[in-house]
């Protein structure tokens, strides 16, 4: 049975021309799951619309 992220992994891999070996899929899925869980933790935090991003930190 296909895992929930598999269709997404296939679509992004195609868009980025990234080769995905079938044997590596579980590891990639597990890593993506962690990345998205942590990204959601950040996403859940309400920020004002005016917040500037900090792509490079300057003191």
């Amino acid at each position: 049975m296909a895992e929930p992220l598999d269709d997404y992994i296939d679509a992004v891999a195609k868009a980025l021309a990234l080769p995905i070996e079938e044997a590596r899929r579980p590891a990639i899925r597990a890593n993506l799951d962690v990345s998205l869980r942590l990204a959601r933790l950040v996403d859940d935090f309400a920020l004002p619309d005016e917040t500037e991003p900090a792509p490079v930190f300057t003191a």
Partner: protein
Amino acid sequence: MTTKPDLTAADIAKAVAGGRLSALDATEAALARIKQHDTTLNSFTDVTSDRARARARAIDADIAAGKTVGPLAGVPFAVKNLFDVAGLTTRAGSKINRDLARAKRDATLIERMEAAGAVLVGALNMGEYAYDFTGENVHDGPSRNPHDTTRMSGGSSGGSGSAVGGALVPIALGSDTNGSIRVPSSFCGIFGLKPTYGRLSRARSFPFVASLDHLGPLARSVTDLALAYDAMQGPDADDAACTTTRGLEPTVPLLANPVSDLRIAIAGGHFQSNLFPEAVEAVGRVAKALGATQVVDIPEAARARAAAYVITTTEGASLHLDRLRKRPNDFDPAVRDRLIAGAMVPAPLVDRAQKFRRWYRAQLAEVFKSVDVLLAPATPCTAPKLGQVTFKLDGVELPVRANIGIHTQPISFIGLPVVAVPVPLEPLPIGVQIITAPWREDIALRVAYALERMGVVAAPSPKRL
């Protein structure tokens, strides 16, 4: 004068400048220790013996001619193998980069160390592409912990930690994106400085995450750390992030200044959770010695760690995207799979992480209005066994790799300066972070020096080597 393994860089430089030790003898002693112990430690990937001897002879010739030599005259040092070393291929812990052309020019920080009289003796093992906290490397084998060679050195500057912890060289240079200087410093029982983001030039070093990458020194004493740091300061047009507004701010003359006027607090919340008893003990000892009792909450530190993770995995994926397409099977599989997953994180979530970063930086700026120094654990545990996958904390089985850096990531995320100091617990040492406001490396080094003078922190001798 003969050299002992525990001779500090300051001792060596003083003896060389005073004519009691030749730079060549100091260099030969380091080369001999590397030869004797590195088959065990596996910290070096390249030993630059010919270059080192030539450099040492030049210093000795200068001294014989009555010329003034620098504050690191004759001091052997080595660099993580992501620094360009003229004539070597900059492998950055990878197999793939070994196909690149040899570097034509040294990294800026090597040039500055050598301008101060130091002698480069080699390049050091590291986790692949610096995406690592363990010091393990599938291509070169793991760098090993000098206090127990069945254990991790920590990473990704694993060879830097192992070589200095094993007293093969008194100073090494490493890089720190999320904790890669502070983690090996903690596991190997040495001092490490991650300066303010933008303080030291990264020119001609292989990058990982542009907005999080820092370079810095690791050493066996605070004075040595400060000597190396002072030698490497200064603007550099070859690194876009390197400060142009700060002049040279030497720290060595300030080390012995009192710390009694400083407001020192213990970082609370996130920094007091997920800790083994050794980490609690280490922070407790340091806090007690400094008379620090106030606990300050760092707002949203766990979320800061999450945001650092997201920025790291996505920027890292961007850096390596073409290599992931063309040579996926030449990566360490664990690194590759993390990077491929990083390439798949939707862009809005990365932008959210960067916006959160700005918010979090403002929160810490507020904290530093009422304190000068924050104390926090460097790692949740002492060095795990090589290959160890999980550890049990509060009855919960957790992955080792993902959790080693949970206390370092929220600090480097906003570029704060940190000195990691080693608390010499038995049987294994563990580090504590001395964290200060941006550009106040001088305060962090001063506190570290006071702790060293009190005997609370020290780099233990590698007795089992």
